[in-house]
């Protein structure tokens, strides 16, 4: 209903919410996740999802509705837009939970970005954090390519880098969480990396500083991602329960499973690249 009464009611609600915020009377969990803050980001994320990147999501039915689970995806882009779009895809798929995502440590040394990431459910990428989150039965998104993934040059896009030392497999084995593979296509075109500025990166303590068609040319506007077309595909969960919890100690098994997951995601990435037909169409 849009009338003067409806407007007044909405205004009243907004003022009430703002007042509660100012009194510190709002929820926040032990990780610093702030549901009201995250909800406020939703319109922006919806815009990016529907209009900017025109995301198509498939396979959300593979993501567990409750209980611990590890979502493993390929990684690209400096800012965790891929995590935000995955979360939006899950919400659209009717999965009503607050996914948490592991973010490269150095992002937590940045002003503002660190706060925004944390309030939206990001935590520093430490195995201790991931373990605790899974033990609390959270849905945790990890990007095992890490800094190697985001620092890929344009020519290497969609070629998945080594999956670290397989730490995520160890976590899954130790906590009994299923691994849900996820392929993201489109994220690797939003900041095409043409070159690097290693001196600047060192100065800022960043893992790398890219040169893209818009950055550093346009300054802060270079942070605006290109409007590529995205596809997000979730695959069937990989249950590792059969390997037993002792397998977590066995390096060979861990690396083997990690490589298997990587190959699966790589296959899903190729399939979706074919389905997408053109990056900026």
């Amino acid at each position, binding site marked *: 209903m849009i009338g003067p009464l409806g407007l007044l009611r909405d205004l009243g609600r907004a003022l009430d919410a703002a007042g509660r915020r100012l009194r*510190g009377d709002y929820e926040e969990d032990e990780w610093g996740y702030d549901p009201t803050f995250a909800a406020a980001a939703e319109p922006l994320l919806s815009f990016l999802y529907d209009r900017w990147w025109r995301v198509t999501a498939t396979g959300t039915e593979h993501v567990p509705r409750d209980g611990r689970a590890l979502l493993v995806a390929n990684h690209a882009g400096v800012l965790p837009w891929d995590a935000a779009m995955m979360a939006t895809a899950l919400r659209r798929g009717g999965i009503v939970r607050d996914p948490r995502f592991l973010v490269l440590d150095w992002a937590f040394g940045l002003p503002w970005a*660190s706060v925004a990431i944390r309030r939206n459910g990001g935590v520093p990428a430490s195995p201790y*954090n991931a373990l605790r989150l899974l033990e609390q039965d959270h849905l945790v998104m990890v990007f095992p390519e890490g800094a190697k993934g985001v620092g890929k040059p344009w020519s290497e896009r969609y070629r998945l880098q080594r999956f670290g030392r397989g730490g995520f497999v160890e976590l899954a084995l130790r906590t009994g969480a299923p691994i849900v593979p996820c392929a993201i296509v489109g994220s690797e075109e939003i900041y095409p990396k043409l070159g690097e500025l290693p001196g600047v990166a060192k100065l800022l303590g960043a893992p790398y500083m890219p040169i893209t068609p818009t950055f550093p040319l346009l300054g802060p506007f270079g942070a605006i991602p290109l409007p590529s077309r995205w596809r997000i595909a979730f695959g069937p969960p990989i249950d590792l329960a059969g390997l037993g919890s002792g397998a977590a100690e066995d390096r060979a098994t861990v690396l083997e499973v990690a490589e298997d997951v990587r190959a699966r995601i790589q296959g899903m990435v190729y399939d979706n690249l074919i389905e997408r037909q053109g990056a900026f169409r």
Partner: protein
Amino acid sequence: MPPRRVLLTGVSGPLGARLAARLAADPGVEHVIGIDTRRPPGALAERITFVQADLRRGELGPILKLASPHVVVHHDIVQFPEPGRSARSLHDLNVVGTLQLLAACGELPGLRAVVVRGSASIYGSQPDAPAFFTEDLARSATLRTRFQRDVGELERLVEAFARRHPAVACTVLRLQPVIGARVDTPIMRLFRSAVVPTFLGFDPRLQFVLDEDAVGAVAAAVGNPVRGAVNVAGEGTVSLARTLRRLGKRALPIAAPLYAPAVGALARTGVVPPLNDDVVRYLRHGRGVDTTRMRRDLRFAPTHTTAQAIDAVAAKIRAEDHAEAAA
């Protein structure tokens, strides 16, 4: 268990006196011997004997032999200057004091437990730190600040003592910052000042322990000495922004490179208290600790979560402000 004699260092400190009273009220404790260089603030309860002595001097041996305690509680660990504890003496008090005390403890045949009040500052405050430090992670922390090095060194002393005396159970309690209306630390003074300088663009997760829970945790360790380090904190964390809003205090955001000079200038004019490195780093990056060991092994459950502790302090500060306004 038969009633025990407990020796307590730092009995004249702000929390020491309350701890002594708490221990003396415990039927499992036969007698409390309190040691300090300072006179106790008021009359001590029955069953508490005060001995004036300096831990840093080698005069403890005879006193300890005479007292022959079953449990030694080393509570005289100081992070901030306070009356009778100057800034220059802190390192000596913490490290040399512990060294002398443990040396004297080595000669006590009846000693069963040593409880040391350590600090969660040992983990430091870093942006890339685990969100909740477990006790075994202290080794991986880089010791950056002076107090961090102090507690690191004193924990090594306690570990060495524990190895040489396997019959004595040695506990180190790693407390998160203690808050409470009767506590006088830089953090509490900051919460009482008109504005609180914060780092522009940062909003750390903080974790506190209410003063009565800090006392309760040490008392719990006396009754149930567990071996090794135990984190002590109220459940959960609260962001600095939310803490200040609940306290009704205004934040004064300062860009990181200007923080130290700006706070230094504010401290000279008396607007904010002087802050040491630990507090400054804590206000920028925060810290959380895992309290599984506290609940499972120490069998201690704090009465207040971190959020409740902040609310309890907020209520007291509001009442004080009202009383001031009325007067």
